[in-house]
Structure formats: C-alpha cells, structure tokens
C-alpha cells in the first residue's frame, strides 16, 4: 500500500478486494474504487445489494484486508490501525452483548478507544442524552428494540469524539421518529465540524443530509459528487396544465417559443423544458398565456437521488436493473461503465 498524504478525511485510489480461496472461485468485490471525502462534509455511499459498499467501509475500518489500496484516512494510511484513533464506527448490524447495559456499551467502547475513565464517564451521559437513550442507559441491551440498539450504536461510535464518523446503515430498523433523530444528529455532527460517512439504502435519508454522494455498482464507483453535480444537464422546468387543456396545442406553443423542444408527460399533464435557466422559460409561459391556456404550476425540477440511483443500476442495453451481487468473472468491465472510470 502506498501512502498518499491528503488533507481530505478519506482519500483513496484504486481500492481492490478479491475474495476467494487459493484454487477456488474468485469474486471481485471491489474493482478499483477511488473516492474522496472532504473534511466536515456529510458523504453518502449508496448502491444495490452486493455493490461492495460494506466491503469498502470494512476496509476503511480494517475489518477486511484490501487486495490493493492506496490512500489515506485522516492523513494516516488507509486500512491501518493508526488511522482508527480518530474514527467512530457504527457497524451494519451491531451485535452488542446482551449482558451489558447501554451505558456500559458506550463506556466499553470509549475504553477500547483509549479514553481515560473520567472523560469516558462524562461523555457517556452526554451521548445517551444526544441519542435519546438517557432513560434506558441503565437497562440491559437484551431488552432493547432494534432501534434502541441502533441509537446506542451511534452513541458508542461518537464516544471518543471522533473527527470522522462512519455509519453503516444507521437507520436500519429505526422508526420514522428515530430516523428524523438520526438525521438531526448527523446535521449536528456536521455543524460540529465532523466528517460523516453514511452507507445506506435509504435514498431519501441520504438526500436529506448528504453534501455529496457516491453510487457504487458491482464494485465500482459509477457516480460521485454533489446532487447538483450529478443532476447537471438533467434539470428542467415543469409546466403543469389542467385537465381541460389541449396538450398538443400547448406543446407546439412551447416548442415554438423555446430554443429546445420540450417533452410531454401525458399522464401527469406536464410539459418539461430541458433548462435550468428561468429566463429561458419565460417566453414559453408568455406564449401559453397569450393563447389563453391556463397553467396550474410552473416549477424547477431535478432528478431525485432515486432517479440517479435507478439510472446507475440499470443496464443500458436491456433497460432492466442489473442483477444484485458482485461480478464473478474477474476483469469483466462493469456494464454501462467504461473500464477505469471510477
């Protein structure tokens, strides 16, 4: 592994992971993943099952050993024990001992991170309060619901005041109220200047809190950037017409008034202009109004994270979602993605 000194929270290049026995079948879980997470941002990692998200998180946390990895985590070589001192981690399915109380788990976690006892004790109460578990801190984990365990899991990830927090499916099994709480905690962590890395299936959750996202498919990062960057060229204005409107007439009017042709969505009775410039939309509105057509609404639209995700996981040749799981044939390029485009 080569060390690339970086001021980013996570800066990795060409991370590969191949599973398999010496003479058995090989599975390429990661096929040259490159990713940069800046300090102080909330970064979301998404992808279908088997895309390699958890493997990547585990490599960063040294739980899985990479086949190849270059880069750094908080300035330390990625995938090494030294990089972990200032990193907090919530595993995908935290399995806390049933004989411990929530308080003991957070304290144990602090001790494993090397915190002095006094500081640990003070921090535990504060964190249980933060995750809304103050009243349950003295109860054994055996009696906790999944959501409560997840909250304690977040508290234990934060106990040693980490600069970087990796949350693997933090809202898994958490009810809507809990999800909102976790979203608020994430925002608070960002406000405190921490970097938060979230791996989640819940696209709406990520969309609400993440500054930047990366989409992984079959062991590669196929898209990475802010939502705005990822939707660039796909944003537009949507003009909604009432049920009585003549849609074909409206379309011809808009096409005549706009530099680019619009698209018509008959089901939703909307015309979509492929521009994000409000100035460009005005002549179309004027033309429609000049023909006395009634407009129900005009609003800017952009693809949702779900739209981006679905595009990324759809095979462009067949138009169907890609099969879940990693490729079993090493070296085969990812469908829809040029070789080396990570």
């Amino acid at each position, binding site marked *: 592994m080569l060390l690339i000194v970086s001021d980013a929270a996570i800066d990795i290049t060409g991370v590969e992971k191949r599973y398999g026995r010496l003479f058995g079948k090989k599975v390429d879980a990661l096929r040259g993943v490159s990713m940069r997470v800046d300090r102080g941002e909330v970064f979301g990692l998404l992808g279908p099952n088997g895309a390699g998200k958890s493997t990547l998180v585990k490599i960063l946390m040294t739980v899985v050993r990479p086949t190849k990895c270059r880069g750094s985590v908080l300035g330390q070589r990625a995938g090494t024990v030294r990089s972990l001192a200032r990193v907090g981690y919530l*595993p*995908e399915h*935290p399995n806390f001992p049933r004989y411990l109380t929530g308080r003991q788990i957070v304290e144990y976690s602090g001790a494993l991170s090397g915190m002095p006892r006094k500081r640990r004790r003070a921090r535990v109460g504060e964190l249980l309060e933060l995750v809304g578990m103050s009243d349950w801190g003295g109860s054994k984990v055996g009696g906790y619901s999944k959501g409560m365990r997840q909250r304690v899991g977040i508290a234990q990830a934060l106990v040693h005041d980490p600069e970087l927090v990796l949350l693997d499916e933090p809202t898994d099994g958490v009810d809507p109220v809990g999800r909102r709480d976790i979203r608020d905690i994430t925002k608070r962590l960002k406000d405190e200047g921490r970097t938060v890395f979230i791996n989640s299936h819940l696209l709406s959750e990520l969309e609400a809190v993440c500054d930047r996202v990366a989409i992984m498919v079959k062991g590669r990062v196929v898209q990475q950037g802010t939502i705005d960057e990822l939707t660039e060229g796909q944003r537009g204005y949507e003009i909604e017409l009432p049920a009585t409107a003549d849609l074909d007439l409206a379309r011809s009017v808009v096409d005549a008034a706009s530099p680019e042709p619009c698209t018509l969505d008959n089901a939703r009775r909307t015309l979509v202009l492929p521009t994000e410039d409000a100035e460009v939309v005005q002549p179309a509105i004027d033309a429609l109004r000049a023909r006395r057509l009634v407009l129900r609404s005009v609003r800017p639209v952009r693809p949702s994270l779900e739209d981006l995700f679905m595009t990324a996981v759809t095979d462009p040749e067949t138009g169907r979602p890609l099969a879940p799981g990693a490729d079993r044939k090493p070296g085969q390029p990812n469908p829809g993605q040029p070789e080396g485009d990570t």
Partner: protein
Amino acid sequence: MIALRQTIAIFLDAYRELAAGKIFWISLGLSGVVVGVFALIGVSETGISIVGFDLDFLPLTYALRSGLITPDIVYKTIFVNLGIGLWLTWAASILGVVTTAGIFPTFLSAGVIDSHLARPMGRARLFLTKYTTGLLFMTSQVFVFTFASFLVIGIRGGAWEPRLFLAVPIVVCFFSYLYAFLAIVGILTRSTIAAMIATFIAWFALFLVNTTESALLAYRVNAELTIERVAERVTAAEEYAGESLAQIRDNGGEIPPRDEWPDGTTDELEVTFPQLGERRRALADAKKRLAQLTPWHDASVLARGVLPKTKETIDLLRTSVLSEEDRQRVIDAGSRDQRNPVASFGDEDAPSAGEFNTELEARLTQRGLWWTLGTSLSFEAALLVFGAWRFSRRDF
C-alpha cells in the same frame, strides 16, 4: 497507557460475560459443595472419619496411628489428589471448556468483531488479550476453591500453607493447554460446538498418549527393577556356585563331563547349582522383555515430548505442596499391604509396591520443570502464534 485501558476494558467485559453466565455460578456452587465435603473429613492421629464415621479401611489410617504421617499431610494429599486432581482438573475443567467454548466464536460474529477491530489496537494484541481473558473462568474457580481449602486445612489440619495457592497458576496453566485448542478451532470454524468437540477430542488424545506413556514407563521401571533384583540373585547364586565348586574340587570330587549335563546347562557353575541356570534364564527373559519394551516407551516419550503434559503439570502441585519426605511417607503408607500394580501375579522377582512406587516417583520427579512446563508452553505458544497469525490475516 492506551493499551492498558484497552486491556482493562476487555478484562472487565470478560468478567461481566462470565458473571452473566449460569454455568459459572453453578460451577462455583459445586466447588463450594466439594470444599464443604472436604471440611467434613476429620483427620486425627487416630484415623480418618467423615461426619463421625471412621474410615478404618483406608491404608492411611495405619500410617496415621503409627505416626508415619501427620493429619496435615493427609489434608494436603486430599486437596492435591481429590480437590485439584479430580474436581478441578476434570469436572471443573469440563465445565470450563463448555463455558468458554463460545468466547471466540461469539467474539468473531458479525457486529461484534467489527466493533473491536475498528479500534486503535493491533489484531495480534487483541487476539492474545481475548485469549487471556478466557482463562478468567478457571482462575476464579481455582482461586475460590483454593482459598476455601486453605481455610479448611488451616483450621482443621492446623497447617497454614500458602504454597496451596500455587494451585492457581498450575491449574490455569493446565487449562490454558485446552483453551488454546478452543481458541484455534473457534477462530478457524467460528463454531462453538466444533470448538468444544475438537477440544474434547484433543484432550482425550492427550490423555491417551499420557496414559500410554505412563503405563509403558511403569512397565519399564518394573522391568528394570526386576532385572536389578534378578541380577543380584544371579550374582549371589554365582558366588554360591563358585564356592560350592571349589569345595567339591577341594574334596577331590569331580564335575560330570559336558555330555552328561542337563539340557540348557551352560557351565560347571550351573551343574553345581542348578538354580543358577534358572536365574540366568529369568534374567535373560527380563532383559528381553525390557528390550522389547524400551523402543515403544522411547517412542511414546518422543511423542509426548512435543505435546502438552497435562498430568505432569498438575503433579507439579503435589511436588510443590508436599516435601520429598512427606511424599515418601505417603507412598510408604499407601504401599503398605499393597502389591506392585504392574507385576505379574506370583512374580517373585518383581519389586515390592513400595520399591516400585518410590522408583516411579523418582523417575517422574527427575523429568524437571522444562520437560513439564517448557515443552507444554512451547506447544501452546506455537498454537497461539498460529492463531494470532490467522486472526490477523483473515477478513471478517
């Protein structure tokens, strides 16, 4: 400092895990019962009794009454042979294996191992710390048992013997041989059942090798002592025959010619004293038997040389708690009216039980600490190095 905090935390967690398990308390309760029974045993200069019933049939009774051994030696012998040798080494160890078999498989399960590996702590240190915490079960069991026994021996036997506490490191060392198997199989298979079964098989195999070697050693000692005794008799017979032959010749007598000698007679001495021939043949037979036995025993010693020595490890306690003189007294008392256990019935050349037991004890004592602990701990260390390597290299 950080390493110390991490180690303390893992130990504290291990204690909590133990305390949360029922078997730990059941085992501790059973230890209490065993010590309770121990306390009920009365030993005095008049003999041994339990709840007022005299146990006159025990061989030690005579030794007590004749002043050969004192009550405190009897108490210490009971502690070593029954308390440690039977209860802790077998029953409590079985419970120990059952209790601790799940430590590594649970530790390696998803959601647990991730939380531990994501800490600023090297994998090898994490593995070895976790391994050491697994010995807490036996440490606490032996300590409580020994402390209670210390009180019993002090109060009832009048001997306050701090050396009894050597039982703690010795029994824990013994258990660590087994726990090393548990840890390795636990890491390789992540299965509690597989770890438990493999450890019991390994334990049984060690017991088998140990018993085979012990039995061969006993037969070898018996054969060697027999040869010594027969050789002495042959020498005495040769002297006697020589004197008889000289006397015959002095008196003008003659030895019959060779072709008139009985079958199997080799020289004039045997003609003069026919029993000499029998003794010489007995000596040759004994040497032949020893020659047949020796390679097998040497091979078993070699096999044991690299394996953990469970029996000898526990025996270290006996040699530590009882002085050489006390041990000899116990052997003498135990051998009284007893026959040599490995001698053939009616074998007059075989050594007596006392002679045989004393020699066997001397041979075992000669083996020394390196043979017992050095090689055993080296084997364990090799297993742990492999375990640490495997733990450090694998993905979770």
